[in-house]
C-alpha cells in the first residue's frame, strides 16, 4: 500500500462544440501524497478548475474525459458510474469552491446541514451525528459553536461560512480535498485562518489537498509542491520553493516576475507580452511560443511534455535546443 492518494495520469478533457472539438486539458499528470498540499496555479482559463472538476466527476456535459486515468488511493475512479461516483464525492473526496454560498442551503440551519451530510455518508445516529457536527464546527474554529448550530448561513461572516463549508467537506473524513480558490472571495485576515486550517488538516489527519489559487504568497506559505498550468497543460511541476525561487519554465518565470514586491520598489512591473491563446487557437508546438523570449524553431513544431517534476520546455531537455 503506497501513500499516494491522488494519481492523475495523462488526463485529456474534450468539449465537442459546433465549431469542432476543443481540447481543454491534455497530458495532465499529477499526484498528491497523504498529508501533502499540491498548489495549482496558472493563467485564468488554463484549466485549473477543469482539472478539479474532472477529478470530482463533475465535468459539465458535453465536456468529457477523453483519455488518461484518475486513481484514488489505488482505485480507478474516472470510469465509475455516476451513482458510485456520487458516493466517492461525499465520502472520499471533499470539495470547497470559491463561493461558500454555492455549497450552503440558505434555508437550513448550519447544524442541520452538517447532520444531514454526516448521516448521508456514515451510519451514525441522529444524536451521534449532531455531536460530530458540533466537534467539526469547533475543529474549524467557529467560536461558541454550540450557539451557532442553529444559525442560518446569512448570519455568518464570509470567513465563518467558508469554514462551515470546510466542515461539510470534512464530514466523512475524506482522503482528498479539492479546494478551488477557497480564499479568493475573502480578505487577508480570513484567508490566513483558512490556509492555517488546511495546513492543520494535512498534518493532523493526513488529508491530501489540491489547492487552486492565483495568490502566489498563499502557495509559498501553504503548498508543499506546485503545478503551474498553461493552456490546458502542466507547464512546470516541483517543490514549492524551487518553483518560486528558481522557476525553470519561461512562463513560470514571467508569472513570478509580474508580482509586486512587499520590499522592492519598481516603477514598472514585468509583464508577459500578449495573452494566453483561446482553446480553439492554440498554436502548434509549445503553446507558450508566441509569448516566449526564448522560443526556437523546435518550439513551433513539437509539443514539449513532462510526466514528473521539471518543466515542459525544450530548453529543459538535456542537450536539447529550442
Amino acid at each position, binding site marked *: 500500500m503506497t501513500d499516494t492518494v491522488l494519481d492523475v495520469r495523462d488526463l485529456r478533457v474534450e468539449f465537442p462544440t459546433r465549431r469542432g472539438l476543443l481540447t481543454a486539458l491534455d497530458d495532465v499528470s499529477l499526484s498528491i501524497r497523504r498529508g501533502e498540499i499540491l498548489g495549482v496555479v496558472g493563467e485564468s482559463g488554463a484549466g485549473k478548475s477543469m482539472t478539479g472538476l474532472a477529478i470530482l466527476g463533475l465535468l459539465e456535459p458535453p465536456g468529457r474525459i477523453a483519455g488518461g486515468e484518475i486513481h484514488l488511493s489505488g482505485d480507478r475512479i474516472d470510469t465509475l458510474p455516476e451513482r458510485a461516483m456520487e458516493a466517492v464525492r461525499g465520502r472520499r473526496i471533499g470539495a470547497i469552491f470559491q463561493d461558500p454560498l454555492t455549497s450552503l442551503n440558505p434555508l437550513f440551519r448550519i447544524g442541520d446541514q452538517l447532520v444531514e451530510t454526516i448521516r448521508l455518508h456514515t451510519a451514525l445516529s441522529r444524536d451521534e451525528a449532531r455531536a460530530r457536527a458540533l466537534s467539526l464546527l469547533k475543529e474549524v474554529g467557529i467560536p461558541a459553536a454550540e450557539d451557532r448550530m442553529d444559525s442560518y448561513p446569512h448570519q455568518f461572516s464570509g470567513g465563518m461560512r467558508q469554514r462551515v463549508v470546510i466542515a461539510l467537506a470534512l464530514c466523512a473524513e475524506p482522503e482528498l480535498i479539492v479546494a478551488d480558490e477557497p480564499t479568493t472571495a475573502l480578505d*487577508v485576515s480570513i484567508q*490566513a485562518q483558512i490556509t492555517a486550517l488546511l*495546513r492543520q488538516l494535512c498534518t493532523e489527519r493526513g488529508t491530501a489537498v489540491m489547492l487552486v489559487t492565483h495568490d502566489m*504568497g498563499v502557495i509559498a506559505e501553504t503548498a508543499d509542491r506546485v503545478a503551474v498550468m498553461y493552456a490546458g497543460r502542466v507547464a512546470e511541476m516541483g517543490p514549492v520553493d524551487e518553483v518560486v525561487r528558481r522557476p525553470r519554465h519561461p512562463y513560470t518565470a514571467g*508569472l513570478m516576475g*509580474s508580482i509586486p*514586491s*512587499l520590499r522592492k520598489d519598481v516603477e514598472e512591473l514585468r509583464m508577459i507580452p500578449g495573452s494566453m491563446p483561446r482553446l480553439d487557437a492554440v498554436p502548434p508546438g509549445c503553446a507558450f511560443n508566441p509569448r516566449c523570449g526564448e522560443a526556437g524553431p523546435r518550439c513551433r513544431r513539437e509539443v514539449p511534455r513532462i510526466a514528473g517534476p521539471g518543466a515542459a520546455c525544450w530548453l529543459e531537455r538535456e542537450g536539447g535546443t529550442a
Partner: protein
Amino acid sequence: MTRTDAILEADALERRFDVSAPWLNRVLERQPRRILRAVDGVDFRIRRGRTLALVGESGCGKSTIAKLVTGLYPPSGGRIRFHGDRDRMQMIFQDPYASLNPRWRVGRIVAEPIRTLRPETGDAEVEARVADLLATVGLSPGDAVKFPHAFSGGQRQRISIARALAGEPEFLVCDEPTSALDVSVQAQVLNLMKRLQREFGLTYLFISHDLSVVRHMADEIAVMYLGRIVEIQPTADLFARPLHPYTRMLLETIPDLESPNRARKPMGGEVPSPVAPPAGCSFHPRCPLAMDRCRSDRPTRRPEILGGRVACFAAEGATAR
C-alpha cells in the same frame, strides 16, 4: 499639503444604513431600530495626480466610501468637496458581473462614455477609439461585438477598465480593480494605470485587499476599521513604521512570497458587528495593547499627535514618553 492642490476632500464623512427588521416584526418582537454605521466620521484628502489607497478587512466601509465619492450614495453626515470636473470622474466597480449591462454589446458599453463626453464624435472615430481601448486592456478589437456573458471574470474587469478610460477621466475610483485578474494580467493593468497617471496626471482612489498591489500603486494608505480611518500615512512610512496595532497585525498576516513563513499565525478574533460596535476604541477586543481607557474613550486622529496619522492611545503614549 496646501488645501488648493487637493482634488478631493472628505470631512467628517458619514454613511448610515437602516438595517432594522420590517416595521411589523419590530413592533411584534419589540426589536429596536438597528442602524449600521458603514462610514463613521472619516477625513481624508487626495492631491491631484496622486493615489490614496483604502485597506482593511471586509465590511470596514471601503466600497461605501467609493460610492459616496462618486455620488452613488448621499452622505448621512459630513461632506465631500471635489475640485475637479464631475463628468470626468469614473469608477471601476468591485463586481465585474453586476456592473456591465448584459444586453449591450461590449462595443456599446465602452463607447457610451465617449458619446456622453463628446457627442460630436463620428461613428468611425468612436469605433476606432473603442478598438484602441480594448487593445490597451489586453482584449481584441473583435470582442466589441460580443455580449458580457461570453467573458470570464477577469476579462469583464478589463471591459469595465476600458469603459472607465473611455471617459478620459481625471479622477478614477477603483474598487478592487485587479482582484478578479491573474497576476500576469494584473501587471498589465497596473502598469497601464501608472502610465496614465504619469502622462495625464490622473488621480486615483484605490481600494484593494492585496497589500503588495497597494504598496506598488499608492502614495498614501488609509487603514480602515469598522467604518473609521485608524491610520493614514505615506506608503513607505506605513510599511516601515506602522503606528496602529491593527495595521501591524494586518501586515503580519499577509503571506510573503519573498520570505515565506509557513507557521504564520492568523489574526486573532472576529470583526465585531458593525451594528453594535464595541464602546471606546472599537478595536479593543482584539488589541494586544488595550488599556482601561480604550474600553470607554474613543481615540481620534489629531494633528498635534504624530501629525494626525493615527487614532490610538497606545501610539500617543509611546511618543509622549
